[in-house]
């Protein structure tokens, strides 16, 4: 029973955090600064989430660096998301053979 309560509270808080701004922000934001800020948020968030965490994502800095390099290279060439993501995994896996 206590477990159910934990799960309900957890899911409830997580949903409200997502829902409130999404439902109640109905108007276009006028402030140029704030619009610019929101334009940059996704890039900033993803960057902060990726660096340095990506180097800890495979259990070895070296294989992670290889996977990262493969991803950056292919992303720079403009390849689709799935290709880049798989290349990161492939780069990591292949680098593992050389350790």
């Amino acid at each position, binding site marked *: 029973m206590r477990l159910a309560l934990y799960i309900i*509270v957890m899911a409830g808080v997580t949903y409200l955090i997502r829902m409130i701004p999404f439902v109640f922000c109905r108007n276009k934001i006028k402030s140029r600064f704030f619009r*610019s800020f929101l334009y940059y*948020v996704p890039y900033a968030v993803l960057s902060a989430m990726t660096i340095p965490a990506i180097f800890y994502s495979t259990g070895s800095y070296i294989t992670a660096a290889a996977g990262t390099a493969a991803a950056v290279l292919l992303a*720079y060439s403009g390849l689709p998301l799935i290709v880049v993501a798989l290349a990161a995994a492939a780069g990591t896996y292949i680098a593992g053979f050389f350790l």
Partner: protein
Amino acid sequence: MKNWFSRGAYDGIPIALGYLSVSFGFGIKAVQSGLSPLAATVISAANLTSAGQAAGVDIIEACGSLIEMILVQFVINLRYSLMALSLSQNLDRGFSVPHRFAAAYGITDEIFAVCSTRKEPVRPAYMYGMIAVAFAGWVTGTALGAAAGQLLPSDIRNALGIMLYGMFIAIIVPPAKKQLSVLLVILAAAGLSVIFRYLITAVSGGFAMIISAVAAAALGALFFPVKEEADGA
């Protein structure tokens, strides 16, 4: 592709594959913390978030208070508010209030990233397609990890661990190549994140991410305000 639901589902495939591997890890962790595979799967279905769930399981294992649960979920998931706000600025007219109530459930880092960097306004069906596929990956991965986590060789598990980040790179690199301001914002956020990781270690991971991202985006807005026509591009 004809309809928006399948287009969203198609664009969601890399997300689902990434989720499959990450949630696999969550499933293993949850079972190690004493939860049943069913409870782990229910948590994944109800929350659809990685960091928040991992912290939540820690609290359950430690028999923490509900207040602690609320605060931790609030802080770790606060970034979703920023994302929801940002996304709310580029929604299609068909995005009515009921659709917003429903689709809000699926605002994750990755779904937000893909939706928010699209040029045209986001349609409800597109988001639902993406959420459905991502949900399937997240919940399936959790169930598999919880039930059979130890069966996979470790080098494969490790290689799968980097996929989500690879996807993030695929999202941020092309615009950074085109726009100097985006590149600088990305570098600023990464730099701040590194500083928090190694120098200001008292700040927890969730907070560090929020501060780094907010500061970098604010600097970007201050020095490179976007023009009207470039908005949402």
